[in-house]
């Protein structure tokens, strides 16, 4: 069993419209990979397919997480198997407090009949909230309800750090963040970096990658990875924009 997330020849569509087109990418644990690309190229679709969203039809290929094909699993199974998706647009859940929400998610990871240690849980929750500069009063607030954009994203990172995943897919986590919030979020992510965790940071802008420095940068276009390189590739994209990709794609075609 290899400790990596392998996306092989992935094709996916929604309502008959093909979005992912023979996409290949390997993310080993311990590395941070960025996916950059223009809007509408399928970046968020990839994130949702990985998390098991049922609206997307997988037309071919496989996604192996530590050797296990996750495309056949339900979203909750994928999550418990170690994959975390930080949503671009986190949902507001009326009447469910953050504390109860994260608690239910942790409880779901325990064996039947086993109860979460509440004292330990709150201790850890508060520590991580302090780290992410989230007011402790938020624990009793409904998940994301009435939160600002920055609060929602910090709440995603809070969940991510509480659930301890092997692979973190971060879908445009930088969107809607001011520079202070971006620093807080990036700091939270950087503290989670380690040999046993892989990150796939999806973004449209290079800015986030100044704070979360990737090991590898992939460029996505029209549902495929068209270029892979080091962190310098992100800077190149920032300078040149995405227009040249189209030209290159036209030449290849």
């Amino acid at each position: 069993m290899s400790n990596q997330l392998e996306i092989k020849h992935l094709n996916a569509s929604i309502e008959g419209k093909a979005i992912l087109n023979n996409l290949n990418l390997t993310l080993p644990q311990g590395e941070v990979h960025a996916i950059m690309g223009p809007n509408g190229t399928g970046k968020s679709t990839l994130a949702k397919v990985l998390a098991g969203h049922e609206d997307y039809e997988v037309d071919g290929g496989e996604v192996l997480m530590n050797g296990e094909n996750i495309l056949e699993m339900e979203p909750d199974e994928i999550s418990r198997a170690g994959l975390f998706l930080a949503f671009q647009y986190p949902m507001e859940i009326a009447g469910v407090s953050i504390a109860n929400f994260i608690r239910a998610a942790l409880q779901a990871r325990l064996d039947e009949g086993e109860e979460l240690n509440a004292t330990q849980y709150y201790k850890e929750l508060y520590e991580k909230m302090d780290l992410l500069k989230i007011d402790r009063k938020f624990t009793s607030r409904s998940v994301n309800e009435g939160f600002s954009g920055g609060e929602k994203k910090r709440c995603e990172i809070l969940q991510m750090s509480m659930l301890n995943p092997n692979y973190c897919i971060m879908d445009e986590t930088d969107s809607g963040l001011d520079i202070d919030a971006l620093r807080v979020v990036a700091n939270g992510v950087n503290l989670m970096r380690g040999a046993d965790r892989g990150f796939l940071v999806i973004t449209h802008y290079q800015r986030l990658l100044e704070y979360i420095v990737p090991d590898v940068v992939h460029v996505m276009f029209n549902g495929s990875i068209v270029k892979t390189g080091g962190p310098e590739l992100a800077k190149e994209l920032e300078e040149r924009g995405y227009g040249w990709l189209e030209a290159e794609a036209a030449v290849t075609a």
Partner: protein
Amino acid sequence: MAQPTLIDNDASESPARPELQHQDAFEQAIAALPDQPDWLIERRQKAWDAFQTLPLPSRKDEQWRFATLNRNVLNQIVPGNGVDAETADRLASRSSFIADHAGQYVFADNQLIDSTPLDPELAEKGVRFVNLETALRDHTDLIEPIFLQAQAELGSEKFVALHKALVTNGTFLFVPRGVEMSKPVVAVYWSSAASTAVFPHTLILAEDNTSVNLVDIFLSDNPEAAGFACSMANIHGGANSRVMRKVVQDWNENTFSFQNDLTIAERDSVVKNVAVNIGALKSRYENMCRIVGPGADVKMYSLTVGEKHQEFDQRTLQVHEAPHATSDLLYKNSLMDECRTIFSGLIVVDDEAQQTDAYQTNRNLLLDHTAEANSLPGLEIKANDVKCSHGATTARLEEEELFYLMARGIPERTAKRLLVFGFFEEIIEKVSNQELAEKIRDIVHHKFTRHQA
């Protein structure tokens, strides 16, 4: 599922008890309350005559639209006539619903079986929390103007008449001018013997500048026995009073339940009703609020958990007779299996009730395709300077919300439950008594756990 009937095979134990519609039932009810004043006998006689004369409502009546009323609903039912000592002990020991109360009465099949005296501090200040018999003996002057005077206006004239004629027990809460209660007083009503009728009665008289808190709880001894319940609650909120009344209806699912509540809100009063509807096979709940004084603020909140073949038929009326007042109604229902809900609400604003703010919202959460939610919101506005709105929504669980929860590793079933409990939190938060709120959460969770088991 076969339609449960109210025919009971074990009723032979008390052959002498007359059926509900029989003259003897009325005579027994009259005899059950000793030393009744003439005015009361007259009122009850009048009610009995009305009950005998009025036809059973039918779905053709506008006020019974969508309802399914069993034509035999009154047949082969006898008025509850108390329980034996052993049952009384057993039920009394199961009645500690809210530990932190200021006094409690427990009734079983219309008989008082247990009581915890009112907090002496409140008694000292003149608060009275007594059963009807005591109220009639000691507080005739207080109750004469209001007892059994409320009229049904939402369709249940016949059932209200039945209640008035046959009621023999219940509670009277009197809070004199300026006195504030914080802890609630509690009345627990048990239905025990099969095929008997119970008549819970609540009478609250809150004088000016008071703070009042009462909880009614309806429970069945036996989870299967056929039951019939016909309750009334009359709440009088005096000027600048703060009145909270909560009712938890958790009869078993073979019970026909009729609830008729009337609230009268005087000048600057704040009156809050919270109804939790869990049990009964068919539950007809008529809830009417009359705002008679300017500046009053009335809240009507309700949560309902429907399953199997349950039918919850909810009719509400908010009447604004005075200006500058507010009323806010929120009824939330969740529906499973083949259950049905009917919400029919009306806001009436009289021509002198200017600057009224009145709202009415019914939200239905359909958890199964086979369930059916009906909504009939209505407005009748005669004043020209008012803010009124009504709205009804019927929706299923949001797929994207479900995905979000599942993407955190929460199994689908648990995720759905979290969303449904979240849906009800908006109501439970209004309960503003931590212990009771927790209890209501337990009851709601229990119903879902039982359902999924």
